[in-house]
């Protein structure tokens, strides 16, 4: 499929909505909209007071349930998807956050800890893509 041409206005508006979601959760619930933390705690049996984590994830899925995720299907071979999934799951819990928790909320909270985490995962991901696509480490 390859990447799409995304108008800058659409990228910015989409990002603003993501930021608005994070703002609502911290302003009204006093919680960080970190998806790995929310999902990880639910999986460990902690849905939070009143089950707010379930409510957040239900809302997160609603637009995609109504409109579809906007992607046909994943093309990558399953061993790669399984390996990547394990690494993303384990790494985000060990590092206490992912693109949403560190990359959006932590950076917006001016957290040096999140600046470091975000720099590391973007840098390592760029290096991984380089090795896989341009250095012959993967087909």
């Amino acid at each position, binding site marked *: 499929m390859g990447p799409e041409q995304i108008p800058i206005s659409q*990228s910015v508006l989409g*990002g603003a909505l993501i930021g608005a979601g994070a703002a609502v959760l911290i302003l009204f619930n006093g919680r960080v909209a970190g998806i790995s933390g929310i999902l990880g705690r639910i999986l460990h049996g902690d849905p939070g007071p009143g089950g707010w984590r379930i409510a957040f994830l239900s*809302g997160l*899925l609603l637009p995609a349930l109504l409109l579809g995720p906007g992607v046909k*299907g994943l093309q990558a071979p399953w061993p790669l998807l399984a390996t990547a999934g394990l690494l993303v*799951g384990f790494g985000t819990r060990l590092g206490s956050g992912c693109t*949403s928790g560190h990359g959006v909320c932590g950076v917006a909270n001016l957290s040096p800890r999140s600046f470091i985490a975000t720099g590391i995962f973007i840098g390592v991901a760029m290096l991984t893509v380089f090795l896989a696509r341009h250095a012959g480490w993967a087909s």
Partner: protein
Amino acid sequence: MTLISAFVAGVLFGGGLLLSRMSNPDNVLAFLDVAADWRPALLYTMAAAVIVAFPAFWVVRRSQRSWLGVAAELPDRFRLDAPLIVGSAIFGVGWGLSGICPGPALLLLTRADRGAIIFALALALGMLVRVPSAESAPRSRQRRLHEPSH
């Protein structure tokens, strides 16, 4: 009330992910691939999200309470430890291999595509592995980036 606000926050977040097209791993990988036809879209999306969320965090960091009166739970901003660095690096490898982080992984599941199910199951398995808690690490192994002034 807190359930409604959490739900609304989720809808905004999920809608933004869809609109930004970052639920498509190809668009994420096009940002991560700096050696080919680099696409900065993810950067615009992340910057816009940070700018919109910034005032809200500023307010709650000072009040330490949410507008519904709940005590805020803001993570430590200054602790630097090995789990943060190693975990973020491991996440980076998985993100670079797939172009999928936890939010998009959940959105992709709504289509029940075989690849999306495999990724999500592996993601859940990775999250269920017990990780050594940073709080239990010896103090001598931790560094503080800066002592908060208040």
